[in-house]
């Protein structure tokens, strides 16, 4: 068995990270499955003991979610409706055992095309905070997720926080996940929706993301644009048509065909928007 370090503070972790090739581990729910029948390819740098990375903080600019925050902690945390979709996603990632260990940061760094958290955070305009001994940088999540299992994380960096901008008005959000069974579902398609309205109920910001239909979760700018200026209580589903799916490039795999994914994405988008319009949670 390789070396294993579990520092208590970020500075030590960054020092270690800079000093060698590590497999970073937090919840372990992606690292260990990749090692079935194999030994660890690299020594393990366990960052789950760094308490500072497990906080939820409200700042002037919005929210700072520690990278090592567990999905169950987010799921059970009292947060404004802006986070309803993300919290719903949190309750659908694996079983309870997974939610109790898996972290927000891990979900992003693992960069699975079917990462539930990625779609939900993308819809929230989330940015990621990356730290190294060289300093700190921020990236929009869309620029962090480069492809299937590929991110912009440098070898000496750690993802330390996810930054979600505050909503400016009334926010509503939802997350719809489609799978072939009830629990322990890897999404065939998932849809994350965030709408923010002004005092008159006019949509001023829309964040719509679809997961499991491209190498990474993708936003749907055309649909978002169509939603702007409409009222939250309008029949929004009619804004959805095949054209809005242009950023997607779904594939055929054992969970579903590409054609099915497109069709299902449209259905989930319509349902999600209808649900938000009536302020009722959508049905997945």
């Amino acid at each position: 068995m390789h070396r294993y370090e579990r520092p208590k503070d970020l500075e030590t972790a960054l020092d270690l990270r800079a000093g060698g090739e590590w497999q970073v581990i937090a919840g372990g729910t992606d690292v260990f499955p990749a090692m079935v029948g194999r030994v660890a390819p690299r020594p393990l740098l366990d960052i789950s003991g760094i308490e500072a990375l497990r906080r939820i903080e409200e700042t002037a600019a919005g929210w700072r979610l520690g990278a090592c925050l567990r999905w169950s902690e987010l799921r059970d945390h009292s947060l404004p409706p802006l986070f309803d979709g993300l919290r719903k996603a949190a309750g659908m990632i694996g079983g309870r055992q997974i939610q109790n260990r898996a972290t927000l940061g891990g979900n992003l760094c693992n960069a699975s095309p079917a990462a539930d958290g990625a779609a939900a955070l993308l819809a929230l305009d989330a940015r990621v905070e990356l730290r190294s001994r060289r300093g700190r940088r921020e990236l929009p999540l869309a620029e962090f997720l480069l492809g299937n299992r590929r991110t912009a994380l440098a070898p000496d960096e750690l993802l330390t926080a996810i930054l979600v901008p505050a909503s400016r008005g009334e926010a509503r959000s939802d997350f719809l996940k489609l799978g072939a069974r009830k629990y322990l579902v890897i999404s065939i398609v998932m849809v994350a929706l965030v709408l923010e309205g002004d005092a008159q109920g006019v949509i001023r910001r829309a964040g719509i993301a679809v997961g499991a239909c491209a190498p990474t979760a993708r936003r749907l700018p055309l649909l978002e644009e169509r939603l702007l200026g409409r009222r939250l209580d309008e029949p929004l589903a009619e804004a959805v048509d095949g054209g809005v799916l242009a950023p997607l490039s779904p594939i055929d795999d054992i969970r579903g065909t590409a054609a099915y994914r497109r069709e299902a994405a449209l259905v989930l988008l319509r349902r999600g928007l209808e649900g938000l319009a009536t302020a009722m949670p959508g049905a997945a």
Partner: protein
Amino acid sequence: MEERAGVRFLLNGRPVVARSAPGERLSRVLREEFGLTGTKVGCDAGDCGACTVLLDGTQICACLTPLGQVAGGRVTTVEGLAGEDAPSRLQRAFLALGAAQCGICTPGMLMAASELLRQRPRPTPAEVEEALGGVLCRCTGYRKIMEAALLAAGDAPLPAEPAGAVGARRTRLDGPEKVTGRAAFGADRAPPEALELRLLRSPHHRARFTIGDLDAFRARHPGILRILTAADIPGRNGYGIYPDLKDQPVLAEKEVRHRGEPVLALVGTPEAVRAVDPEEVPIVWEPLPPVLGIDAALAPDAPLLHPGRPGNVLIEGRVRRGDVEAALGEATARAAIAVETSFVEHAYIEPEAGYAVRRGDRIEVFATTQAPYMDREEVAAVLGIPPEKVRILPSVCGGGFGGKLDVSVQPILAVAAWLLDRPVRTVWSRPESMAASTKRHPARIRAEAGADAEGRLTGVRFHGDFDTGAYASWGPTVAQRVPVHATGPYRVRAALCTTRGVYTNGPPAGAFRGFGVPQAAIAHEALMDMLADRLGMDRLDFRLRNALRPGDRTHCGQELGEGVALVACLERLRPIWRRERERLARDGRGEGPLRRGLGVACMWYGLGNTSMSNPSTMEVGLSADGRLTLYNGAVDIGQGSATIMVQICAEALGLPVESFTQVLGDTARTRDAGKTSASRQTLVSGNAARLAGLDLRRRILRLANAGPDAELALDGPVLRVTENGRVREIELFRLTADADGEVLRGIGSWDPPTEPLDADGQGVPYAAYGFAAQMALVEVDTELGTTRVLRIWAAHDVGRAVNPTLVEGQIEGGIAQGIGLALMEEFVPGRNENLHDYLIPTVGDVPEIEIHLIEEGDPLGPYGAKGVGEPALIPTAPAVLNAIAEATGVRPTRVPVTPDRLLAALAAAKTRG
């Protein structure tokens, strides 16, 4: 290795210091360092939840948690659930309600439920479901687990242990060890000095290979003591179910025929064996174009998998009765259908595991299995030694469903232990297990049926091709069993039912709960609906009209005796069917895109081998100190034979269940009770247990010079025989004990009376049949193609329920697997060799199930009882498919009916108008 301080934590309330590497999986630390093997490992990937433990009160997968993360924490395992001297209320509720079957998921379920009960003492059913959503169970169908968790949460007293034997809801006798984590499954026991064995497997469906310089490889890995190849097999390098079809090599020679086929075995210290990267083992592969699927295998220019099997056809099966052309020609209504099914994985949560020890000129193999005596034959032949020199010790079996009827670890472990003369163990990883183990046969079926104006079936024509994969395994059984069942449980004037087993480079398809009959039932039950609709008849009444009755002749020409209660099953369901149909008519079929439908399906199933002798022998002994021992060679794979054999024997003997202990499955100490397959143990071994009990009773009565109605009572070493108020005492301690300590023994053997089938399949294939009818209510989302099963009703002709709790457990578990077959299970070699891509139903996918046990008694069954293991599964998928057809107006013909397939079928139907 550097000196380590160790990781301190509280383990089940006691402070401990773990010396394992801090990056090691907690599951391995618990099992290997602390010997707490109650925490099970089913996948090492967080997909099955078997390793669920509590960390600081919250459920986690121990397989995903590095030891270092529990430093300073509180870890609770199943061993820590029980109080000082008694199991917890939750554990007792699991026992009382039959929530544990094979027991491999039980610790995980218990821990997940205990997290919930600590957080929410009065949970709702929905909360229980959420809490258990991360633990997979393949046996129970989850219903009894849900009920047990809810019962444990309340204040209601737990049901008391009932008195009596046959017919009583006795707690399963192997239950206490399963709910406390003490039960020893294949991976739970091995001599401490055992070496570890690891197989290197083909990454290709078909390839030639050459093995390079193994000495150089070993020089780099000093902990590897031996590398075994085909050349090292001392005896026959081949195994298989049929004596003339030992076509599956223990280790491949020159060519591999399926992905996952083993080519060499590394034997050495656990550390050394685990450290090997398969890539560095010097094997040079030359991939060849694989033959995948039935079409490819039957193509005129297809490469041949095995010599002597032209056209890659392993075997053909056929039953012909009457003139089917004429019968179909006379029909008023005709219907035809083509159905296609997939490879289905057994997905028992316990992967293959065991160990072997050589003792002089003998070998002992401890392993998870369904068939110890067949294992003994195979191991003997592979070693080239007489079977008497081989002892098989079955572990507690963590699920089988047919997948542990073929040998897995046994031969190679025996070879390694034999050659090295040291104990050797192995545990297959989940991907290995899924790549290498047998599967349900994919079937391609064309069937046609006709009925006259009165709604009586005239003729059935059926042909099914079955992809038997790379090796024969149970392919011949499937090819022979299917034609005998392909008409469905109905009277039919003429039938022609044919099958072919076809070799491909797929995984070996073998035995899986129903031997091809579940696939065939999808076809015949579709035809029944189609014919009823064409005749304007009610679908259930149409089945009732045609249902086989006592005295009818089957299409094999067999005249059925009593013990044919399909009519009773259908009549039991009929008022429910009417009510539910009326409800659908009244309330509508659903809102928006949702559409509801109700389906019904029937099945029959011949119990035991098809026209082949398959005897069982049981022995019971009474010791000088007044203890009864049942020498029970029938392996309990979770279904409960270890409990009901005692119930039956106790009933026959007239002494209480409590007086019994058992010797289970050990081939050195029990007689051959055959294999746990073909739903045969209740009927066949049950009769043997009954006869053994009667035999011992006869001996006791003779000793006491008492008549047949005398009552027996054990009082320690004294056996009291009471007749007409007169008491005779037999002082057991005065009798001479044999080597086992028994002073009296009874023995019983039983073989179901069958007759050979002729070239047209005419004869008596089975002595007894199980019958059933099930109904499914489903809701289809017509925009997404998803299907939710809302409720199942199941009426089963079980003859007599020896233990109703266990019978219900079999039915619920079979239904869960039937739902999986219908909706989600499709194994694709190389694509989903894990339990997150290969989907089996979770606790949220199995609806409420209403069970109706029909107990009219089978004349051949022990106290009227007969098997239900396979019958439970067979009607479920057809009922679900029929319900989908009713809900949507589109009949699915390809299973599983995944959302994308159903949506495509709905779209195609719309296009056709």
